[in-house]
């Protein structure tokens, strides 16, 4: 039932705030609304019960193992939430003067410093509000750098064919053309193809390392040389930073600019689709172009830098200073980890991924890159299962929902047919991983004996498989009352 269907005309919540004067005061009638908006009329209990009920229809980290590759669905510590929601932090207006928010700005400044130390970059801006906005900022800085040198011929961004879709989309938003680079059979960038592609038109290369194929890019130093020798810059997509946190710094690999997904590596919640935060780090040559604002410190006083301080900045990405509450959550998490804890993130996410990969292989699943170490994630391909039993990666994913597990990422990266991209994260125990392997084993058995059970899965979820074709052909995007005038 929708909240609108629970609505009853005239039902009100009067307990929350005082009633206001009835008149619209000094607003001329021609500016006024004549018909009220279609908002529900419900009691507080109606609303609490309705949305609590809806919450029960979600899988989440707090309720289910969520091995969603490339998304880093690790436990979101409750302390991060509680401390980011302290009343003084919540009440602070973004335009309040810096001297009324020194405690808040201290957290942000220290977060900048920790991200700098962790990544090996020279400076960090916390402004981008998501990974994709970080990518945009990063590529915009690459462009600003070339433009500042009058190097207008560089109009191409190179992107491996295994990259996230955001990479090419971000490059295009910065006015660049995108050129895809092939992947070799071991999951590395095809360096021969790369060397053919780089040249005076190359503005930069966007690289995810470990890659979206769940392996470390072994030729990274060769790639770095090739791109820099051609005058291009190297962009690090931090999607898989969890795998190397504290072990390898993007700055040491030669990257000029990186973005970091705090909602992945630093465990801020995904919130059913966001908010995230995508801070960017740069080396010295890109530092003047960092997006605003930045937090500066001098003699223990913190202040936000503006256009006057950074005239070459690419500018602002949002009205305020970024997703402040997300930044505070990441700050709390990083302080709780400390340096040793950060290294353990990489170690145990890698241990869990390699263990799960080994166990699934023993259980009869085909690993896409069997000769490689898993990073913090790996790919199972169900190509053979599809050929032999007609069961697809989608079917297996849906059946996992029945067994009480969220599905891994399916059909990404597209290079591997019928793929499941599996990322267990470091916060899951061996016992949870073993239970997942047992479920996968059962599903493999079902695929051979009762494939129909998989093809019609899920069976135990609040709804069965949905008609997505109908949803796209006849879009129904808003609810309409039965006796609607509209």
């Amino acid at each position, binding site marked *: 039932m929708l909240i609108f269907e629970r609505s009853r005309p005239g039902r009100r919540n009067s307990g929350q705030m005082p009633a206001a004067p009835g008149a619209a005061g000094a607003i001329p009638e021609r500016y006024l609304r004549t018909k009220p908006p279609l908002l529900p009329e419900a009691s507080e209990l109606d609303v609490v019960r309705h949305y609590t009920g809806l919450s029960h229809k979600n899988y989440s980290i707090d309720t289910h193992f969520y091995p969603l590759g490339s998304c880093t669905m690790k436990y979101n510590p409750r302390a991060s939430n509680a401390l980011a929601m302290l009343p003084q932090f919540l009440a602070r207006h973004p335009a309040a003067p810096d001297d009324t928010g020194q405690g808040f700005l201290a957290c942000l400044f220290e977060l900048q410093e920790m991200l700098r130390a962790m990544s090996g970059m020279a400076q960090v801006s916390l402004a981008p509000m998501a990974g994709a906005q970080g990518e945009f900022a990063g590529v915009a800085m690459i462009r600003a750098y070339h433009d500042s040198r009058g190097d207008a011929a560089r109009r191409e961004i190179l992107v491996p064919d295994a990259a996230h879709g955001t990479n090419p989309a971000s490059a295009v938003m910065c006015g660049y053309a995108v050129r895809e680079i092939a992947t070799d059979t071991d999951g590395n960038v095809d360096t021969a193809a790369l060397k053919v592609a780089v040249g005076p038109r190359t503005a930069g290369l966007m690289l995810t390392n470990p890659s979206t194929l769940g392996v470390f890019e072994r030729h990274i130093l060769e790639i770095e040389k090739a791109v820099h020798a051609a005058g291009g810059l190297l962009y690090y997509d931090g999607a898989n930073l969890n795998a190397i946190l504290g*072990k390898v710094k993007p700055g040491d690999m030669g990257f000029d600019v990186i973005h970091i997904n705090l909602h992945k590596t630093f465990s801020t919640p995904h919130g059913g689709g*966001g908010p995230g935060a995508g801070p960017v780090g740069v080396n010295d040559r890109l530092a003047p172009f960092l997006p605003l604002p930045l937090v500066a410190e001098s003699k223990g006083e913190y202040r936000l830098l503006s256009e006057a301080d950074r005239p070459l900045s690419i500018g602002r990405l949002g009205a305020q*200073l970024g997703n402040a509450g997300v930044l505070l959550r990441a700050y709390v998490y990083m302080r709780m980890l400390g340096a040793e804890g950060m290294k353990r993130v990489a170690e145990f996410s890698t241990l869990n991924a390699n263990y799960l990969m080994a166990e699934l292989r023993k259980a009869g699943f085909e690993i896409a890159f069997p000769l490689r170490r898993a990073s913090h994630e790996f790919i199972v391909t169900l190509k053979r299962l599809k050929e032999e039993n007609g069961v697809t990666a989608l079917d297996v994913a849906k059946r996992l929902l029945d067994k009480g597990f969220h599905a891994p990422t399916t059909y990404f990266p597209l290079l591997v047919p019928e793929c499941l991209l599996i990322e267990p994260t470091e916060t899951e125990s061996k016992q949870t991983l073993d239970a997942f392997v047992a479920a996968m084993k059962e599903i493999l058995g079902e695929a051979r004996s009762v494939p129909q059970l998989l093809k019609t899965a899920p069976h135990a979820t609040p709804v069965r498989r949905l*008609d997505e074709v109908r949803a796209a052909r006849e*879009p129904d995007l808003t609810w309409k009352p039965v006796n609607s005038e509209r």
Partner: protein
Amino acid sequence: MPFIPHTEQDIRAMLAAIGVASIEELFDEIPRELRGGALAGIPPALNEMEITRLMRGRAERDGTWLSFLGGGAYEHHIPAAVWQIATRGEFYSAYTPYQAEASQGTLQLLYEYQTMMASLTALDVANASLYDGASALAEAVLMAVRAHKSSKRVLMPATVHPVWRRVVRTIVRNQGIELVELPYCTEAGHTLPEALAKLEGAAAAALVVPQPNFFGVLEPVDELTDRAHARGALAVALVNPVALALLKPPGEWGSRGADIAVGEGQPLGVPLASGGPYCGFMACRKELVRQMPGRIVGATVDAEGRRGYTLTLQAREQHIRRSKATSNICTNQGLMVTAATIHMALLGPARLAEVARACHANTLMLASRLAAIRGVTRAFSGAIFHEAVMRLPTPVAPVLQALKAQGILGGLDLKRDYPELGHALLVCATETKNEEDLALYAGHVARIIGRRARPAACALKPQT
């Protein structure tokens, strides 16, 4: 080990199963020269008790203030139920609802949210959120240019928030889009429809129409919308969602209605929180839906014919269309939308309109109390919603500084962005302010200005 559950026994068994002697061996594909950089600069770990003490101390140091700041972010009362429900783990720790059967809670909520936003704006469809109001405006500009096809020129009134205009410039500038600033009437404080007529030359893809505008003043939206359409441009409405409970919605502006509406969703149950996370909203006519950026939820049926919800029209998005996507946006502001939906459901149409009226009444009362001070006037004659520009007889910055000493954040100094307005101060009084608050504020302003207006000969520190 914080948040890592492994026992020694687990670790041994796992290493044996993999066939390696140590965890370190799992990193052997990484070139040796890259491995093991020290993490200097990361302080040692704190436990929960220690970090709690640190954060409480910092929060208390920042304190709480009596604030009359607006300018795109507004203090409203948020019912306790909103964030208690929104931070339930099932909403808080869920991913984007790509696996629809495992995400019906979030998906249905988003469908309800889209319905509420479409209705508030009186447009056909709404998306599931963008980052914030300013970036949503930038996306609307890009969308209008895509839809228009032939023009890359967008008309942007000077009455749009100056920071938002800068954000738009940052985001669209590399795509060859030209932003043309429209002047405003310095007496009334709104854009003059005649200003459009004066713009000769190239066609425009869109006109941005803010309501209310940055000064809090209401724009002649009907005339502006019609003039935009007459020039073959789209009308992009930039609106405050609380104001929409009271004001004519964009879909009804002029003879055909605005084509796209965007704005900042923060006033709908999202705390000020130093600037974020907030949520941008976007609604449009259904003919434009395939040009819309961001996620969209649709209703459909499951294998048994039951109603269910799923992400739809995904071929617009980066994970499918890659370099040809409508935007690079992926992660949005889902949790803020969760709060906004619960907030709107709790308030309903009547209470939301009451909140809007209370804000309006309080700001009018504040403006008239301030205008009663000698030398202080309303800067503009145009009707306002819940912000007002006051012109002071003395520079604004020292007045704000003196107010701060009294625990009051007195508003925004417009000197940097609108020097032509003289000593101009933007104030806002939402429903959270009562008569005593307004009296206190006006009283301090009167005292501070009176003091500053006096001859500067007095060497003694005035009593407060």
